[in-house]
């Protein structure tokens, strides 16, 4: 018997959300003043939730580890945000966005949630424009759109390559308005170290002031976790250096189920690893696949010559190039979903066709786009017979207008000019679809503890489509959580302020302090990074783009051994009473060392391939993922019972009533 209650409302899918909003309990404005809410995280999800909750009248406290809410990792999102506005008149609709998202996620997400996401998506754009978010516009003054992988319409709104920045600054400005009104208190440079439960309900957190090292108690009637994804369990990823799983993992250990931890997105277009001491990977926005063509040499000898530095990509003739995505997937070509594109790159590199010194890279080429745009531009400006130089010049200008900052970023990092020579790219860990299990109201299995944004297991199933994370974060924060939370809080209008003097807070604080002490009581042999890098290597080699039973079992053992070594031999320098980045890192890596094991276990027990989860044992003859709907059409929600490996599985069976289950094909 499952204890999971997804609370999906009855009725036809397009009526569920409206019906639910009409039927749930509300808290009247006067009573909201007596209710406190803690929001951990100030990214798109947390920032928008905090601003809206405060505007509704609740007293909000926000927490983030950076020095300002504006620096949350959402700031780094480049490409865009989806919405079913159908401004381009290309046949888009809520249903189509819903359909694309469920299909893109390889049928492992909850229909009702995804439909709601599609339904509120248009409103996000209205909201952001009203806030002054400067989206890209056409010459006529209306909003511009581009297209992303896995879809056949142009529904992505963008602000050059800085969409996340502009959306986050929008949410931050909404927060600032509430801070100025005294409705939000923002605790920056603060890290949530534990969740506090009173009578089984989430009633507060223990936080560490990262400047003074002080351990603080904060109480509230409900706690919202919007602390982002856990991609950094791989050490190298496109996530910010501080991105971590601590908040979610602490909640997990206090009773929140962790769903689908092994569903990770490996993004196909990142700058390849260049050296041993590299600290993070840089994404090149997926939007580049609108115009860039992906290829490797057709002949192994050419690939070898390139790796040895004897041949340049520009010297390889058209007929000697293998545009493998266009070859394998003629319908979607370079715009197949991310999981498909990543695996195809790995397949070519494993087969010996990879480029770069390491052989772990493929080309992303803009030559054709430059020529196409150049010709078009010359033609429309009256030059019907332009010379080649003119075409190239005009074409480069057009490409610069679209992707200028991305090209610049690429050149700064690699010292190569992508207008003249193709970019080199390789897949890298980017996003985690897994996360805390939540019901339709976004509540975890702990009453009063909510999860929003990348931190929840969300709406993306086994693979997220491009430009959908920003959409989900803002949908959760602006339009879903502020209403659904009222249903729970309606019972709390007479509770009064929650005291931090209770035994529960006392115990939680003591546990946090003891844990910090334990980090200092070791033999002190190896720096924290030593463990993080080792963990990352196990994860990448054995739980990465393709997985198999044998290696997953090995990974579980290796991670366990590494964790035990960590607690005996990690070296944490400095004092706990000051700013101390090593101590911060140590706490985060300690949690990754537990999550990693659950991750491997989840991957091991999911005996099918779906989306980002590719099990070598389960593939079709031509190497495509082989899903098993009969036996695995469920969400795996893990209950913590002492050790990550002993976690207890609860299944949420997924019902598909509005979309027919099909083999995903992009051919």
């Amino acid at each position, binding site marked *: 018997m499952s204890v999971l209650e997804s609370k999906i409302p009855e009725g036809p899918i397009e009526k569920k959300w409206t019906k639910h909003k009409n039927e749930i309990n509300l808290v009247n404005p006067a009573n909201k003043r007596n209710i406190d809410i803690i929001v951990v995280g100030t990214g798109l999800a947390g920032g928008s939730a905090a601003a809206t909750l405060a505007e509704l009248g609740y007293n909000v406290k926000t927490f983030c580890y950076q020095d300002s809410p504006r620096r949350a990792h959402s700031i*780094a999102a480049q490409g865009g945000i989806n919405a079913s506005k159908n401004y381009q008149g290309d046949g888009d609709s809520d249903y189509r966005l819903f359909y694309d998202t469920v299909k893109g996620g390889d049928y492992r997400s909850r229909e009702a949630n995804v439909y709601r996401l599609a339904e509120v998506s248009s409103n996000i754009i209205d909201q952001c424009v009203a806030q002054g978010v*400067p989206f890209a516009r056409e010459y006529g003054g209306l909003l511009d759109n581009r297209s992303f992988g896995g879809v056949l319409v142009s529904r992505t709104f963008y602000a050059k390559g800085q969409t996340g*920045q502009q959306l986050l*600054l929008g949410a931050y400005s909404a927060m600032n308005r509430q801070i100025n009104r005294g409705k939000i208190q923002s605790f920056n440079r603060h890290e949530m170290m534990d969740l506090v439960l009173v009578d089984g309900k989430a009633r507060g957190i223990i936080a560490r002031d990262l400047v003074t090292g002080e351990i603080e108690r904060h109480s509230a009637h409900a706690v919202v976790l919007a602390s982002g994804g856990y991609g950094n369990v791989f050490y190298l990823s496109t996530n910010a250096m501080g991105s971590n799983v601590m908040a979610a993992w602490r909640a997990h250990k206090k009773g929140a189920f962790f769903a689908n931890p092994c569903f990770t997105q490996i993004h196909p277009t990142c700058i390849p690893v260049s050296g041993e001491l590299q600290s993070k990977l840089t994404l090149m926005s997926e939007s580049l696949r609108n115009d860039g063509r992906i290829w490797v040499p057709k002949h192994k000898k050419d690939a070898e010559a390139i790796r040895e530095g004897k041949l340049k990509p520009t010297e390889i003739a058209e007929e000697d190039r293998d545009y493998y995505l266009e070859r394998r997937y003629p319908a979607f070509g370079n715009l197949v979903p991310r999981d498909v594109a990543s695996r195809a790159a790995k397949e070519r590199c494993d087969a010996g066709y990879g480029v770069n010194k390491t052989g772990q890279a493929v080309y992303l080429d803009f030559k054709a786009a430059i020529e196409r745009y150049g010709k078009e531009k010359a033609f429309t400006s009256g030059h019907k017979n332009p010379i080649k130089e003119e075409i190239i010049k005009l074409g480069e200008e057009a490409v610069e207008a679209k992707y200028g900052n991305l090209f610049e*970023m690429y050149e700064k990092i690699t010292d190569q000019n992508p207008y003249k020579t193709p970019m080199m790219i390789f897949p890298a860990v980017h996003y985690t679809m897994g996360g805390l299990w939540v019901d339709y109201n976004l509540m975890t299995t702990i009453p009063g503890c909510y999860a929003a944004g990348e931190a929840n297991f969300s709406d993306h199933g086994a693979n997220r489509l491009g430009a959908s994370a920003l959409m989900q974060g803002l949908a959760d924060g602006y339009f879903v959580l502020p209403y659904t939370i009222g249903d729970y809080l309606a019972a709390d209008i007479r509770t009064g302020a929650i005291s931090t003097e209770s035994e529960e807070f006392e115990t939680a604080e003591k546990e946090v302090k003891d844990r910090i002490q334990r980090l200092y009581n070791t033999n002190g042999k190896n720096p924290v990074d030593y463990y993080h890098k080792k963990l990352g290597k196990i994860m990448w080699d054995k739980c990465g783009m393709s997985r198999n039973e044998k290696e997953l079992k090995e990974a579980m053992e290796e991670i366990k051994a590494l964790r035990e070594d960590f607690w005996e031999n990690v070296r944490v320098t400095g004092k706990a009473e000051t700013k101390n980045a090593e101590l911060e890192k140590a706490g985060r890596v300690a949690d990754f060392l537990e999550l990693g094991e659950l991750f491997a276990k989840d991957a091991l027990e999911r005996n099918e391939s779906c989306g980002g989860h590719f099990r070598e044992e389960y593939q079709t003859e031509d190497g495509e993922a082989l899903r098993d709907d009969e036996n695995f059409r469920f969400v795996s929600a893990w209950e913590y019972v002492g050790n990550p490996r002993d976690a207890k599985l609860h299944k949420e069976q997924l019902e598909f009533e509005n979309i027919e289950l099909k083999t995903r094909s992009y051919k």
Partner: protein
Amino acid sequence: MKLKLKVWRQEDAQDKGGFQNYDVDGIDGDMSFLEMMDVLNNNLVNEGIDPVEFDHDCREGICGSCSLQINGEPHGPDRRITTCQLHMRKFKDGDEIVIEPFRATAFPVIKDLVIDRSAFDRIQHAGGYISVNTSGNTQDANSIPIEKQDADDSFYAATCIGCGACVAACKNASAMLFTSAKVSQFALLPQGEVEAHERVINMVNQMDAEGFGNCTNTGACYVECPKGISLENIARLNREYLSASVFS
């Protein structure tokens, strides 16, 4: 590459602080400046010395966390980049590199190279927003067409990452470039018009209250700004301020 580093060490806000010399070896041109700092810190941890604290997060030039004064220049010798985007190929074997925090009265040092930039947040609290409810009851986004040029200019102003290099570069430690970028973003959009006067007055008052200096138009901020925030924004702020003062 082998480098000689002269790094500012300061225990906390009360401590006087001073430079320490460290040598690092094995630095590759493809490494970023912060990866070089990682190497230094790894060495220090192995020697049992407290590593150097510095702010960083995204490491791709967008979060605005990193904030090092390198050889006297905010974000170092290269242009239009942040510290985390600076690569070691800009240096050569044997170089001495002086590394300090951004210096300004309004940005007190927290520890080593970490500074307190909350003054920037408070300037934003004072008016860096449009007072629209987040309820979702807004009109259709395309019902307000905006000229592409205005939309683009607004966007460029909005790309400020709040790093503080402008303040560190200015001999008066003025925050005009930062403040004017936010004022401009909204001043250029019809949505921002209603509160324009109040916004500019409140934000400028807060900026003064935080102890930033006056702007004497030297343009040093623009030179060091990683995002190339234009000086036209300052001119726009001045116009907005003047017109707000006249009408209020």
